[in-house]
């Protein structure tokens, strides 16, 4: 906000204009791609969209996608928040390595991740065996989907939450300690509420990332079909007419949920401002 105010009234050099024009290409590219598809579907072929809404398999797969990535995000919050806090607050030997490890899932190709996850979590895999003894099977089950989504989306959550904790002045926590708060109380009464807006935007990012995953999931759980899998499957069997309505439906639902969450969580970060 201050940056915007500072620029007001300053005569702009053509550089800004040139940059704006160049920069707009990337935006136009993104908007055009989505708009082209949504427009064609909504205006030119609305009957296929209605058919897709009425198709229980389509709605089931979208529901499964949203639910699985929600579960993955909840797990990311529970396991990722302490990690994010430690990374934000402490310096230790090998911290750089840990930070790079957090980012590994972002860097590696998702098909590679899928293969690796399958190797680990299949019933005969190193970890899969232990879980199958507990009655949890990953192969072709929702848990496989959740595991793959967690793998690819957790970094987004951890990084956002870490930024959130880093934005809290450590002195504030120290003062809380001197006022009688133990370490846990200083965390959940001071740092956690102050990092909450970052944590929620991280959670939304993580949820969106999970929802969009396809590559890592199909290796471990082609079935039950999540929406991206179904879109791909329908594309190979029925072409664009069969797959596009599902894609548009998924986009619209995600967009609505995304906007609602944004509106709800927006005011949470407002008292963070300090002059």
């Amino acid at each position, binding site marked *: 906000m201050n940056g915007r105010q500072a620029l007001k009234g300053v005569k702009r050099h053509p550089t800004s204009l040139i940059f704006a024009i160049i920069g707009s290409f990337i935006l136009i590219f993104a908007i055009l791609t989505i708009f082209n598809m949504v427009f064609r579907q909504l205006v030119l072929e609305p009957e296929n969209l209605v058919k897709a809404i009425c198709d229980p398999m389509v709605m089931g797969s979208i529901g499964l996608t949203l639910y699985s990535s929600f579960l993955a995000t909840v797990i990311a919050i529970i396991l990722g928040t302490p990690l994010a806090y430690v990374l934000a607050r402490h310096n230790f030997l090998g911290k750089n390595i840990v930070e790079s490890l957090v980012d590994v899932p972002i860097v590696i190709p998702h098909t590679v991740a899928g293969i690796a996850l399958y190797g680990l979590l299949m019933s005969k895999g190193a970890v899969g065996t232990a879980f199958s003894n507990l009655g949890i099977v990953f192969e072709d089950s929702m848990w496989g989907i959740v595991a793959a989504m967690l793998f690819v989306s957790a970094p987004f959550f951890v990084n956002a939450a870490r930024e959130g904790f880093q934005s809290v*002045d450590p*002195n*504030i926590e*120290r*003062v*809380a*300690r*001197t*006022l*009688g*708060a*133990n370490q846990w*109380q200083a965390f959940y*009464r*001071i740092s956690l*509420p*102050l990092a909450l807006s970052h944590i929620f935007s991280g959670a939304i990012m993580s949820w969106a990332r999970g929802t969009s995953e396809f590559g890592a999931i199909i290796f471990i759980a082609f079935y039950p079909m999540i929406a991206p899998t179904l879109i791909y499957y329908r594309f190979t069997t029925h072409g664009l007419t069969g797959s596009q309505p599902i894609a548009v439906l998924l986009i619209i639902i995600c967009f609505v949920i995304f906007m609602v969450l944004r509106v709800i969580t927006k005011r949470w970060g407002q*008292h*963070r*401002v*300090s*002059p």
Partner: protein
Amino acid sequence: MLALENISHNFGEFSLKRVNIRVKKGEYFVILGPTGAGKTLLLEVVAGLHIPREGQVLLNRSDATAIPPEKRNIGFVYQNYSLFPHMTVEKNIAFGLKMHKIPKKEAEVKVREIMGTMRISHLAARHPHTLSGGEQQRVALARALVIDPEILLLDEPLSALDPRIQETLQEELIRVHRARDVTTVHVTHNQTEALLLADRIAVMMDGKVVQVDTPQGIFNKPTSSEVADFVGVENIVIGEVKSNEGGVAHVETEDFDISALSTYMEGRVKAFIRPENVTLSRTSLKSSARNNVKGRIVKITDLGVTVRIQLDKGVKALITKNSAEELGLKIGDEVYASFKATAVHLSRT
């Protein structure tokens, strides 16, 4: 009351090297030193936010070195106020009482009382980011004081404020300290602040406590040239004591002789003279108790209210702009610099 014994510690780029300090009950103790001297780290060791690598922190004669901060009952105020941004002023102040499980009714009374004392009652429902710096620091003080701390630690509490607010808050600190009789350790790099507030001052440099004394002692009788330099004793000359007559030592330096109040009978010494204790005149002011140095002005620095005049013999004088104008001083003029024998402080080199 508070004793630090041989504290050594490292944290980031800061370090403490065998620090020994004793603060008496009810004392207003100032730790004065340049940025990076380790002053904040020392306060954080006292608060229990760091466990020192070596040494002991004694609170009321018992070892508190390993006691966590929440059990020490120490109030802490940082330079940047460090108010909880998501809480109102009232909630900020009540936080410590809540953590100490003080019953709600009692806590409300205490919060109201301290807000009255700090003159911030009208801000109770406001959030920190809507307050001015001065107001925020009052809230921070109230929040630290409301828990009735054994010790109040102030880390550069006035440094971020503008001079006018600094002055009123200085008065406030004196008033609060008198009224509550709370043992206070105040860290600052500002000499005026130290001079004004302190019962005693410890000068800290490069992680070490280099001198502990009353403000008068520190400013008039620095024991080393580093301290002298830091507290603004700009005249430091090396010489030799040749004789001593009735407590007045006669010191010969390279350029001029000095009479100084001292018990030294002989030997090499450093003589410290504060520039504000040096007066300038056009004619020699001969008197037995005064030193007189004739010199030529080589530099005149305008400092706003005062002017620093430097003579070719290395003597610096700090005089008001008014008197500089009255004397019509300009570069190249020949003047007499004079200072009393009592204004000279000698220390062994």
